[in-house]
């Protein structure tokens, strides 16, 4: 009986002891939606933070609050912004990290370090590269009628589903950032007058921004990599036909096969073979019920796609972006070869011989025939 009293009193006393109370009230938080980083003069960082404020009453419209600061590190700019902000700066619902083009031409890890260190930070935030300056894009405040804090994340989501850009977030790029045998590709946002477009990929080499793939090349890369979204659609001219007309198709099923071989002399040969089943979604020439025409289209599109694939790979090689992870394969299967190439992988990667071909087969052409 006495023991119980001791325990009970002990508990009561504990309740009144002051200590480290890690309470984190939602009502005291200012929630960061988008963080944009740009290069400022003298190796400094110009950060733009977009906070989303939901109004207390239903009749008012939600608003975005944009604050910016210059500092040496992201944490410093964050603290500087916090000084200008009511309540507390909280980044656990951050949705997008946007890096300006100029800044991305240096190592991007110092910008991301803060996100990996804080256990509360949102690891599923998208990470993108902005054409020009991130602050310019964020300064738009609204795109059409949508707030920028809502527009950009949803824009990226949509583009991911349309197989236009890679579906990467802070968590998923982390292992690739530190992998010498693979490079990341991030969505590349461009400003088109009053709109923002997300359809291109920014290529990186060793955490440094090196080039951009155009929309068709981006889709091709994603299909060859084997990570398509829900829809993969392309519109191409049927080039060497007499009555040329554009054709639009969806890639319904994409099989891909990549083999990395090292020849005795140390030359690396990569065979990329893709086998696509496509559906025609638009083709004004019609007559798709005739097997002859279908066969001809199969051949033409295959040729066109193979050309596009080679063009994409060439661009990537020029940018030294090893998005397919050729280096990783070599590390895994040919460690001896890697030992030799390790010091100068970018050089060797440029010399890798790619043998890409795409085989296309039309499996349906809509409801009319």
């Amino acid at each position: 009986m006495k023991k119980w009293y001791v325990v009970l009193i002990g508990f009561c006393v504990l309740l009144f002891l002051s200590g480290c109370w890690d309470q984190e009230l939602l009502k005291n938080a200012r929630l960061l939606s988008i963080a944009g980083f740009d290069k400022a003069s003298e190796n400094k960082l110009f950060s733009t933070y977009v906070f989303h404020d939901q109004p207390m009453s239903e009749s008012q419209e939600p608003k975005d609050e944009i604050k910016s600061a210059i500092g040496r590190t992201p944490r410093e700019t964050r603290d500087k912004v916090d000084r200008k902000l009511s309540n507390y700066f909280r980044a656990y619902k951050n949705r997008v990290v946007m890096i300006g083009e100029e800044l991305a031409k240096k190592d991007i890890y110092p910008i991301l370090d803060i996100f990996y260190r804080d256990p509360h930070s949102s690891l599923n935030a998208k990470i993108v590269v902005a054409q020009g300056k991130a602050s310019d894009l964020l300064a738009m405040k609204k795109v059409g009628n949508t707030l920028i804090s809502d527009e950009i994340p949803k824009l990226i989501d949509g583009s991911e589903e349309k197989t236009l850009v890679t579906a990467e977030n802070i968590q998923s790029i982390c292992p690739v950032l530190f992998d010498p045998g693979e490079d990341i590709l991030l969505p590349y946002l461009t400003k088109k007058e009053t709109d923002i477009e997300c359809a291109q990929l920014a290529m990186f080499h060793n955490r440094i921004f090196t080039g951009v793939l155009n929309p068709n090349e981006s889709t091709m890369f994603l299909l060859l990599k084997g990570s398509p979204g829900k829809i993969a659609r392309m519109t191409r001219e049927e080039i060497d036909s007499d009555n040329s007309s554009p054709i639009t198709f969806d890639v319904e099923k994409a099989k891909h096969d990549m083999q990395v071989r090292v020849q005795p002399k140390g030359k690396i040969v990569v065979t990329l073979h893709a086998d696509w089943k496509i559906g025609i979604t638009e083709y004004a020439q019609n007559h798709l019920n005739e097997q002859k025409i279908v066969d001809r289209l199969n051949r033409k599109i295959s040729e066109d796609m193979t050309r596009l694939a080679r063009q994409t790979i060439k661009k990537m090689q020029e940018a030294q972006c090893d998005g397919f992870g050729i280096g990783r394969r070599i590390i895994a299967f040919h460690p001896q070869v890697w030992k030799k190439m390790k010091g100068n992988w970018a050089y060797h990667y440029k010399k890798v011989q790619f043998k890409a071909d795409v085989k296309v087969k039309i499996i349906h052409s809509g409801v009319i025939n």
Partner: protein
Amino acid sequence: MFFLKKLFTNHQKKKPSEETVGLYSSLAKNLNYLQTNLSHSSDLKWEQINFNNKKGILIYLESVTDREKIEKKVIYPLHKKAEGVIEEILPIAQFKKIAHLNKLPLLLVKGNCILILEGLHEAYVMGVMPSYSRSISEPSNEQVVRGAHDGFIENLTTNLYLIRHRIESTKLKVHYYEVGEITKTKVAVLYMQDIVNPKLVAEVDRRITSISTDTIASTGIIGEFIETSPLSPFPQILYTERPDRTAVNIMEGRVAILTEGDSSAMILPVTISAFYQSPDDYNSKWIIGSFIRLIRLASILIAFQLPAVYIAVVGFHPEILPTELIFTVQSSVGKVPFPPILEAILMELTLEVIREAGLRLPSRVGQTIGIVGGLVIGESVVRAGLVSYPMIIVVSLTAIASFVVPSHEMSTAIRILRFPLMVLSALFGIVGISVGLLFILIHLCRLESFGTPFLAPFSPLRMKDLKDTFVRFPIWKLNQRPHDIHPQRMTQEDYSRGWDADGQKEQ
């Protein structure tokens, strides 16, 4: 300490039993004795009667006897015959001859009338109890959609009839006890002689006979006397007003205890699963029964933890809210001046007050409470910025979920345990909730009801008994009685679907 002990201990000193007193030859003396022993109560009536040329006196308590029965069955025959053997004349079944005067007062209180003839040394005791009882109706707190609609009433004999009527077996044993030094309340213990675990019966007998109190006001009081762990918030005895539920439990090998003057039966021992089961589960098809049972289980979890989880989320881990939701919650929480725990306790207490008020009010006024409580408080409290919308939703969900729990005792236990969990979550977030739940689980694991583990068949795990816990398997799959009560016969059903040739192959 001594003071507490003094407050709570029973002084189990038995009064010495009275000495036996023979009947006096004088009627007046006898009457005087009875009057003294019945505290000169005003409802003690007596009438002069002459029989066999002897002066006699007929004594009864008018409040516990049926005046009409006395006239028809006692006074009228005695007047008509005037002579003869009393046993033969009176058309009364409950007839006794008692030689001890000291036994008479108690018999009077129990509804007998007593005829004392001058000079005789024996008194004639005749049972003339009135049969006032309310009709057998469905208990309002345990209604079912389909199935039996009768319920226990305040009369023990009727209640026993309701059970005997359901179990027409010679093995159904009723054992009477008289509990209460003064009230002498009749308590009946029912069980199936050939199924029940004899050790359990012995234990029940031991605990009931050890009760030494003046008054037994209700079944619940006996329950508190015989419960294994009275300090636990969880009920270890199932109270029910349904004869069908009682009968089924008796047939499973459990013991039922009924009390005179109370319309609920106690069933023991029970395990935790009994508290979220309802006869409805067995009346409807097994798929529907299982579904509803799962919903009930989910409601128990909601009633138990939802406010605590909400407090933890808003106060400690807002990052687990989805992006779209967090802004809605934040905009509502933002203008509340209190920390979430205060907000929650304020609302929960308001709810408990409304519930209690609704219970005490006549049903016609009850609607007013609904409007005042639900609309006025619910709406204005948010408008005034005292409580946030999500909190209102959480509290209302909790309230609705807690009403789903079929057992009133379990429902109250859950309502009470919600508060410590809320405090823990306000202090330590999800960690606090986990620790709180851990403590509750540890407590449940060591809890037992009359030697049966409370968490059976989960702990100790017995796969066969899981058939009738979370879900209800089809009746023809439930071949065995639950193992936790150690019945003498395990098999309760065997191959009732033997007619089904296809089913036969499967088995």
